[in-house]
């Protein structure tokens, strides 16, 4: 697969179809990889593909300094490619100017990240080029099991759970920075006249930040899990994201990152929208 990836990337650069390939390169340790930006065909040898390709590289697509350049190619796992669908629907990228290279993926991490256990995009969808064999999708039947387990606890217990989890947040904002869909040029926490959200990493500030971050991703989060992976305090951020995904799925029959034409549930009104949420 790696030879094919390097070959494709080289072709794209040589023919001038793209002027930049965003991919994975060798990391500082055999169990890590590092994003690489490749502009010269001869540098395509630097691309790697292995089970440590964690990062969702589509978060680079919305960077202002990269937006101004020409056409770009980005190497994606199936989960990452779902972000391209959302970015395109939210008019953050011009899909015509991005070549998505999807890599068939049997999961990343050792042991496998939990998101990989319920992956139905092991062969990536909505890509321009797919590299690697067709891989059978896994069942998503049990994807919300952890959410349901938490939900089975009584509200006071759940509150205590989240209070404790968020108390460990140090406000490094790595969750936001790693997220492909947190692309606001100025995040609300950086609005300081007035300071709408407390910047302090005290319990109140942490609750405000973490709840707001999750709510802002309702109906949008594609489940790449980068926020949770990068969190230096191991806060289970995906539990909150998944809960919201579950609500959106139940209420609107919508799953983020699959269908390029389906209207965005939080940004469109339909006369037959469920009123369940407003009871």
């Amino acid at each position, binding site marked *: 697969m790696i030879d094919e990836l390097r070959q494709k990337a080289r072709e794209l650069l040589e023919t001038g179809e793209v002027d930049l390939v965003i991919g994975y390169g060798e990391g500082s340790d055999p169990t890590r990889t590092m994003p690489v930006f490749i502009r010269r065909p001869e540098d395509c040898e630097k691309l790697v593909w292995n089970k440590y390709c964690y990062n969702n590289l589509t978060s680079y697509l919305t960077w202002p300094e990269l937006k101004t350049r020409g056409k770009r190619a980005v190497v994606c796992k199936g989960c990452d490619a779902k972000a391209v669908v959302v970015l395109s629907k939210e008019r953050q990228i011009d899909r015509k100017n991005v070549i998505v290279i999807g890599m068939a993926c049997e999961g990343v991490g050792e042991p496998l990240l939990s998101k990989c256990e319920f992956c139905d995009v092991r062969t990536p969808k909505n890509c321009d080029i797919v590299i690697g064999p067709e891989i059978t999708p896994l069942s998503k039947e049990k994807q919300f099991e952890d959410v349901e387990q938490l939900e089975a606890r009584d509200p006071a217990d759940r509150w205590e759970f989240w209070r404790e989890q968020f108390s460990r947040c*140090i406000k490094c904002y*790595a969750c936001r*920075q790693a997220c492909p869909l947190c692309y606001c040029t100025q995040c609300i926490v*950086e609005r300081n006249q007035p300071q709408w959200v407390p*910047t302090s990493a005290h319990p109140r*500030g942490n609750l405000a930040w973490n709840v707001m971050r999750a709510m802002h991703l309702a109906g949008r989060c594609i489940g790449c899990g980068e926020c949770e992976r*990068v969190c230096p305090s191991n806060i289970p951020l995906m539990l909150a994201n998944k809960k919201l995904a579950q609500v959106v799925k139940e209420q609107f029959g919508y799953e983020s990152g699959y269908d390029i034409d389906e209207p965005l549930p939080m940004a469109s009104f339909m006369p037959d929208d469920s009123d369940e949420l407003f009871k």
Partner: protein
Amino acid sequence: MAEFKLNEGRLQELITKLRDAGYRVVAPVEEEGAFVFKEVTEPGQARLDVLRTARSIKEWFFPRVEPTLRYEFDGSAVRCESGLPESPQKTVIIGCRPCDAASLPMLDTLFDWDYRDEYWFRRREATTVISVACDVPDSYCFCTSVGGSPEGTAGADLLMRRTADGGYLLEPLTEKGRAIIEAGEGVLELASGTEEVLVGEVPQRFALDKVKPWLDQNFEHDYWKEISYKCLSCGICAFVCPTCHCFDIQDEADLERGVRIKSWDSCCFPIFTRHGSGHNPRPTRDTRYRQRVMHKFRYYVDKFGVTACVGCGRCSSSCPIDMNICSVVAGVAELAESSK
């Protein structure tokens, strides 16, 4: 100075002794799969075998959130109350590594430079630091490249070294360290001098003396762009770092009352240097990451004569995109060598 022996399996007894002597004991403790320095409530929680905790010991001296002032306004008068801790609890931090301990004297200079930061010093005075020499360093460690050592004593009151028989050799370095030996009486015994200590090796990864002269001359160099284009601009590196000390001050207030809070800040955040006018002198990732390296390896040296990096490797190991400060600085040293 005489050395003492803590035999295998007796660490919990020592911790109990210290708690009985009135110390709040802080050690690496597991928290949701990560190790952090926390107060030990059960002696068994302390994990002295942990090489690298998620965050450094700095939060026990310079907390991530610190109320410095509380005020109330009753319509006519303002009443203020200082947030300065009167007498911080007597504390012992046990199980930090020599790199973390070395960050303390380095920051003493900073916090006593143009203004003596009592928040820092009162906690420093109330705290005893027991470091544990590294028997198994890993590939992120580079203390020896920045003047440290896996058995360095800077900043420590007492140094513990692992022995081949599973125990520890304790070497008190200061009065505070000797007080720990006294508190541990009955658990500790005088060392025989024949113990075999286990100390790992940390290879030197770059020549520090090459770094500063190159940085002095190369503020504008393509290298900064090359290495930092992929930086996500999060604050992990600064927040896990034992020597990063920048903070932000904000008032959290309503019409009647407020708190003035000091919070950790990071030069990698785009808002860090944004002016009121909207102008930002460090508008890009490379200018911000350059600042991080320059501050540690150039400005701090100019101002205080020491490099503000202890080589703990935390920023590298926890960076979401695998930015490795040791490789970055080694790259500087190479450039310095090749541009001769």
